[in-house]
Structures are given as structure tokens and as C-alpha cells.
């Protein structure tokens, strides 16, 4: 067991929000493939069908997506959380983190209070989706709103609250600080980065939503920098996400300061990426004479 920000993870690799997190069964499959925890897709106050397709395409060194936060609303989603909580093999307890979103503090609280009944291990506040008007990054780039929403949710729930941050700001440390002031138990960095791809043959931007968020290998150096900066700025744990597809990537993120990592797009190549990353982290620890992940969290900061 591996404890991060009040959540007991089976290991430090966690499924990122919005990826294979629509159904309980899908998340159970990810857990069977080695994930120490899963974050559900982001669920909001009312049903959303999402943007028109294409909603995700593969690029040379990453992906771009604009799903548009499709979700059946919090009223429908409890059953999926329950399924993944209860469906695990006995003795195997991968954590279930419920990602939620709303347009303001009140909506966040409504969603959180209802879903808490289904016993997720923590909430992750999506204050970072780059392509949902009035939600996500639209709110998450304003420190005051981040603090207010975090505080509002913290005040109303009894499980840990993680806050997921957008890299589309001048100073992510400032936003992290706001989350911390609001009482966040951890910050999660990063969500996708605003981008656009145009098909030059037709002239059309490729996504249904025209622009979207970048993920995958191409964003890793940006994520590492954000995690590094947050580690210097906040005292709560930082969870690293963005471009991790193998153990080396995960270790780099941990050295930068991540207490755990999330993996999203890499399931494109193989769902078993979690298993592979965990094994690789173990090997690295053994080869370098460390006895636990904790010993290397933020190690790069000490080398000067």
C-alpha cells in the first residue's frame, strides 16, 4: 500500500480522468492491468453529450482531444463508482477517485455531496479542462475561484479532495497555492494543453470542437516543469500527469516531485502500461538502492 494525500493506493500509478473511466467495468479492467487507483471520467451537474466528433486523434508525438466532458450527470454515475469499489478481488484495493466538475462552487458541492454516498476514496476537482466553456480551465486559471471552489467542496465532504490544475496559465504555482489555501489535500498536474491541428488538404481544423487539448509524450516536459514548480510552491503532495508512457517517464515525474503519477493517453498503445510502469519503478528503486518511492520524490530539487 502506498498512501498519498489521504488515499491508499495499491501502487503509485493511477488512471487519469476521462480515459477509460466511463464505466465501472472499464475501470475494473484497468485495475486488473495494474493501476493502483483510477480516476473516473469527470462528472458534472447535468448530462452532457460532448462535442461532435472527431473528438480525439493521434499526432506524431501525442494526441489532441476535445471530448467536451461527456457524462450522464452525477445522478446517473453513482452506480459506476459503486461497481468499481465493490468489483475488485478481495484483498486488492485500488483507490477510486471521483473526478467532478461544475460551473461554480454550488454545482461542485451538489455533485460532490451526492457522489460521496457511493464511497469514492477521494474527489478530484476538474478545474482544468481546456475546451469546455464556463468549466474547467475557464475557472481554473483564476486563483480566487480555485480557492473558493476547493474550500466549498472541502467544507461539505469527508474524503480527501485533489485539485487538478491547468498548465495554461503564466504561473501554475500560484494556482496550486490557491488550491492549498482552499484546503486541497493534493494538487494534480497537468490537464491537457490547448492546441489545434488543421488538415491542410481541406483547410478544416481536425476536431469537431476545432481546438482541443494536447496529451501524450509531447507534453511531458511541460508537465515535469509544472510538477517541479508546484513541489517548490506547495506543501501538499503533487500528483504528476502528462505524457507518461513508461517507467522512465514516471520516474522523471517522481524525481520532479510527484508523489504518484497518473497515466491517460498511453492506454492507446497498451492498457497494461500500469503493470509495466510499476515493474519499471520497482527495478529502478532496486538498482539504485532505494527502498521506497518516497525516497525519490522530488530528489532533483536537492541536486544543486
Amino acid at each position, binding site marked *: 500500500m502506498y498512501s498519498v494525500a489521504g488515499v491508499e493506493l495499491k501502487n503509485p500509478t493511477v488512471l487519469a480522468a*476521462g*480515459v*477509460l*473511466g*466511463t*464505466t*465501472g*467495468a*472499464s*475501470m*475494473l*479492467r*484497468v485495475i486488473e492491468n495494474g493501476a493502483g487507483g483510477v480516476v473516473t*471520467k469527470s462528472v458534472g451537474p447535468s*448530462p*452532457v*453529450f*460532448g462535442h*461532435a*466528433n*472527431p*473528438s*480525439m*486523434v*493521434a*499526432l*506524431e*508525438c501525442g*494526441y489532441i*482531444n476535445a*471530448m467536451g466532458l*461527456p*457524462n*450522464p*450527470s452525477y445522478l*446517473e*454515475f453513482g452506480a459506476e463508482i459503486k461497481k468499481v469499489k465493490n468489483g475488485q478481488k478481495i484483498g486488492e484495493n485500488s483507490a477510486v477517485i471521483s473526478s467532478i466538475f461544475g460551473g461554480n462552487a454550488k454545482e461542485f458541492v451538489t455533485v460532490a455531496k451526492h457522489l460521496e454516498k457511493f464511497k469514492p476514496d477521494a474527489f478530484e476537482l476538474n478545474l482544468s479542462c481546456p475546451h469546455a466553456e464556463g468549466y474547467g480551465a475557464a475557472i481554473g486559471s483564476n486563483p480566487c475561484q480555485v480557492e473558493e471552489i476547493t474550500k466549498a467542496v472541502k467544507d461539505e465532504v469527508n474524503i480527501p479532495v485533489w485539485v487538478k490544475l491547468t498548465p495554461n496559465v503564466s504561473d501554475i504555482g500560484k494556482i496550486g497555492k490557491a488550491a492549498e489555501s482552499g484546503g486541497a489535500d493534493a494538487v494534480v498536474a497537468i490537464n491537457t494543453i490547448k492546441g489545434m*491541428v488543421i*488538415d491542410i*488538404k*481541406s483547410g*478544416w481544423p*481536425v476536431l*469537431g470542437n476545432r481546438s482541443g487539448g494536447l496529451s501524450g*509524450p509531447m507534453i511531458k516536459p511541460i508537465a515535469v516543469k509544472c510538477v517541479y514548480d508546484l513541489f517548490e510552491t506547495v506543501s501538499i503532495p503533487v500528483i504528476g500527469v502528462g505524457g507518461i508512457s513508461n517507467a522512465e517517464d514516471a520516474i522523471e515525474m517522481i524525481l520532479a516531485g510527484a508523489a504518484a503519477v497518473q497515466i*491517460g*493517453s498511453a*492506454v*492507446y*498503445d497498451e492498457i497494461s502500461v500500469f503493470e509495466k510502469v510499476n515493474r519499471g519503478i520497482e527495478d529502478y528503486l532496486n538498482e539504485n538502492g532505494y527502498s521506497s518511492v518516497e525516497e525519490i520524490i522530488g530528489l532533483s530539487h536537492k541536486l544543486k
Partner: protein
Amino acid sequence: MACDCSKKEKGKKDIPKNAKIIKTENASISGKKTIYFDISFENPMPGNFCMVWIRGIDEIPLGCSYENGVTFQVVGDATAALDKLKTGDTVGIRGPYGRPFTLPDSNENILIVAGGIGAAPLGPLADFAFENETHVTTVLGARTENDLIFEDRFDRCGKLYITTDDGTKGEKGFVTDVLKRLNLAEYDRIYVCGPEIMMKNVFAICDAKGAIDKTEFSIERYFKCGVGVCGACCIDESGLRVCKDGPVFPGNMLKSTEFGKYGRDASGKKITF
């Protein structure tokens, strides 16, 4: 399973390719249509699908019914827009995607069960069987004579049973009526595609006759990404993705799943059939 579920190399760019329509033709009298592109799919396998992007409208999954073509019926916005396109117009296509049908050997005896537009991904399988001299029996169903597609394609490669709901062609009734009569022990493989309610009944019959282990079903779910990441198309309880682990599944992998019971809409909400 020997099949290659993911055709794409790691890290390879895969955005929709611009495809010009070089020919459109009616596939059924009622207006199901086949459109052909100026570019072919790369190594399409029977059962593969592609994502067709009607720009400004939507991108939808369609079976690869020809090396460079798709066959569809109008059911809503995207298919209606596609239906209006003319020779010279362009769409974006990506794929082929997904797990295809297992190819039969030439000495095998196969049964194809196709309902309505579900015949689309089965057409290339029939073509393969024809070239390969596999012995084929097809049960092809539709609502009326006017809705039938690919009759010739199935006919030329073996025995063809036709059923229509209203009896305008072939036997009046459903594909299942024929299926019930057939001796399934004669077939090495059974391939099925059609409306889920039809496939559910086919499944039940094959199961009852002890033939489920030789079946493969091509199923549909709502696709968003189409490439196995978003999770929109996952089925209960296996959690398998229809877009990447499917759309073709061996019958035994569909046991005790949501198959035949419910699916999900674009929001992820359950929709009972």
C-alpha cells in the same frame, strides 16, 4: 487470438485523410448507398471499420464495405449529410480500425448471418471467401426487398437464404427462422452482424445449439474517440472496448455482458434496447 488488434504503429500520426468521392451508387432500392473514395484503406480486413468525417457535422464509424468504400443507411444528421455528398466532394477518413473477423480457411464451411445494413462489414468477408473458395452459406435478412444489400456478393459464393419481414423477397420472416432450421454442426465458423435485437436472437439460437464457440459478432456502440482511449464504447461486464477490442467479438466473449440488453448514449447513460 492471433489477430492484430491495433494496426497503428506507436507514435504515428493518424489524423483523418482527405478522401474525394469518386463514385456513389445505391446499394439498395430503398436508398442505402455505397460511396467510393479516391484513396483505399490500408490493408483493410473484413470486419474493420473506419471513421468518416463529414466536416462541419460529425465523424461516424462505418464498416469498410469495400477496399475504398463504405455503405450506409440514413438514420440522422451525419448519414443524411453523407447521403447528400456528390462525386468530387470530400470527407475525412481514418482507419481501418478495430479487430476484424477471423479469416476462414479455404477448406472451412462458414455461415454468414447478416441483417439490414449489418451486411456492410460482411461483404468483404464474402469476397474473401469467394476468392479463397471457402464454402459459404449466407442468411441475409431485411425489412423488405427494397432494403436488401449485397445480394449478389453473397449469392456468388455459395448458398443464399433471403428473408424479409414482409415477404417481398425470399422467405417471410426473420433470419432466425432460417437459422433455427439449419444444422449448425455443419459450419466451422459463424459470422453475424445486424441490429442488436437480431444478433441477440441469433446468439440465443447458436448458444442453444451448442455452436456459440464458433460465432463472431460485430457489434455497435456509440464511439467518440474510436481509438480505444476515451472509454465511451466499453461494454459491461468485461469492460472491453468495442472500438479497439472489437467491434468483432467471439460469441463466448459476449456471454454475461450487456450485449442484447443495453448500450450507452453519447453521455454514457445506459439505453435499454
